[in-house]
């Protein structure tokens, strides 16, 4: 049986935070994409690309920071496929988003074989260590929870705040939201609609790539085939659940992160496959019953003719 004591609560909460980070980064990225009027269905592929290329970057350069940069850059590269197909060639955003996901799912195992000659997983690379100075660990309860997070956790928290300020407190953010709500009006007042959409998609690629890098480089120090396991799709739902707001994404990600964290505890009691189903079942329940009344930006998927 499971004993509920402080130690267990601390480990559940610490694990919740670790599982929140990749979802949060991807969902915040998705908020940029959706606010600029482009559907964020490609998050899964951008995340997967980020998790593969961050490990490859760290493997090539020996530096986890360079790895992180690789993850972000290749997240953007994959997001550009979505952007070019959807914004320039006016392909349905769901199709172009899925194209990104399928391309990443097909290319990462292929590159794994070509680069490492291994199938299934990469070699182990230097990873980030936990940020646990004595003063932090000394704080009761909170100390050990925050002390078991690495530096990307703190970067992610800062990015959520910066993203919120950008979207809701700056002129550029206001313009981006205007493009997302009504591209025709935005175009009429002289805004470059395509540029804002490209920016939104590139931000989603960068943040989702960072989220993917957290999964591989930040947690395991290696890449495993299909390691995002649908987290990008869950992030799409979290983003809608959080009303395309970074703080909403934070709340949603913590909710899903908690269910994800519970898995590890219940796997000793129930068959692992049944326990692993929980995040997906919760996602289905949220989509069907939890998104009523929400609406996506009115201009989603609309194009402006020049």
């Amino acid at each position, binding site marked *: 049986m499971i004993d509920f004591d402080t130690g267990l609560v601390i480990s559940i909460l610490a694990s919740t935070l670790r599982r929140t980070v990749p979802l949060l980064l991807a969902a915040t990225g998705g908020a940029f994409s959706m606010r600029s009027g482009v559907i964020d269905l490609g998050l899964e592929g951008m995340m997967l690309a980020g998790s593969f290329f961050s490990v490859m970057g760290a493997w090539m350069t020996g530096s986890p920071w360079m790895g992180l940069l690789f993850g972000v850059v290749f997240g953007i590269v994959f997001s550009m496929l979505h952007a070019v197909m959807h914004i320039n060639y006016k392909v349905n955003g769901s199709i172009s988003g899925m194209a990104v996901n399928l391309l990443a799912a097909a290319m990462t195992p292929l590159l794994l074989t070509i680069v490492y000659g291994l199938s299934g997983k990469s070699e182990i690379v230097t990873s980030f260590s936990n940020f646990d100075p004595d003063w932090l660990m000394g704080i009761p309860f909170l100390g050990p929870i925050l002390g078991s997070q690495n530096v990307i956790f703190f970067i992610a928290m800062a990015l959520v705040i910066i993203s919120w300020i950008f979207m809701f407190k700056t002129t550029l953010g206001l313009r981006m939201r205007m493009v997302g709500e009504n591209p025709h009006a935005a175009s009429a007042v002289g805004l470059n609609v395509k540029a804002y959409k490209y920016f939104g998609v590139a931000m989603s690629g960068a943040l989702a790539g960072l989220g993917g890098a957290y999964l591989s480089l930040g947690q395991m120090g290696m890449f495993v085939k299909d390691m995002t396991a649908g987290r990008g799709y869950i992030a799409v739902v979290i983003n809608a659940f959080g009303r395309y707001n970074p703080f909403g994404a934070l709340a949603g990600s913590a909710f899903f992160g908690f269910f994800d964290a519970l898995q590890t505890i219940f796997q000793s009691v129930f068959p692992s496959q049944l326990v692993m189903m929980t995040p997906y079942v919760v996602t289905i329940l949220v989509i069907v019953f939890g*998104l009523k009344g929400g609406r996506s930006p009115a201009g989603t998927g609309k194009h402006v003719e020049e």
Partner: protein
Amino acid sequence: MRLDNLKSSKYSNMRSSVVNSFFALVFSLVLGAVFIWVTGYSPFETYKAIFGLSFSTIKGFALTLSQATPLMFTGIAFALAYKVKMINTGAEGQLYAGAMAAALVGAYVTNLPGIVHIPLALLVAFIAGGIIAGLVAIARVYTGASEIILTLMLNNVIILFTSYLANGPLKPEGSGVGQTERIADSARLMRLVPQTQLTIALLIVIAVAIIIQFMLDRTVFGYELKVTGNNRRAAEVAGINVSKISILTFALSGAIAGMGGAAMVLGVNYRFIEGFSSGYGFAGISIAALAAYSPFGVIPAAFLIGILRAGTITLSRTTSIPIEFVDVIQVLVIIFVAAPTMIRQILNIFKRITGKKKKNEIAGGEVQ
């Protein structure tokens, strides 16, 4: 006169989509050549080996067709749902559900003659896939939930749940891997070529393609389905029950994918084995795109991809060209088919280059 125009426009549409698909495949193979080149092989020799396999021996040809069979099921499934502008990314899960259903009927319903046992197993798989997709469509129509996310999440749930069954309550004693009891001999599909995996499943899926194509072109339901897909609002105004049509079409799409799973169990593996599908569900998207979303066009499209798969499987035994190579080609096909303007632009660049060459030659001739 007007009828003639209509016919010729339909014909030219078909021709332009065939041209489009052809160049999409060619460009994908050219880009794929880069990957072959990176692994250190000659792209030309590799493609020659891949395409040669299917046409040099009967066994190679049978392998191609048996590889193509499950892809035909999932391809038709995607193409059909796309006719009402719904995206069935759940073929993978529906395939697993159908496979599990057929494996249960095949193993535990016994003492039936083959002529009853096989259709029964197929029917149960059809129903299993249909119910799952039908529920997704109901959620889509009444709550507006994205069918893409729903089916993708359900894929994970179904794959994990069937894996639990195959590793837990349904696991035969002494089995080392996750699988179910062997099906009865009466449930096995007849082989078309001895000692290969090519079975009458191929004939079944061709029949399915013909029936679906006939349904689309010649029945009231098919007509209403196409009107719904082309313009939902116009369909509503015309008094078509758009919700009913969408739900039924999506359920039928899932049911066909479910039959694909049954075909794998009854014809190839003779039991449910966890992880048996090597991405058949997602390959269906590529095949439907290559077929320009025509259910009957899926048959030749799946055959083309089947050539690639069969050739690469055989080649991967002796070389280090991995089987994932075909997955990348499949995605490239989706990308090119989705953006026909991209194909036209690339062709224009080619024309300009070759055009310039000709001009240069003429210019050169004048100098001489």
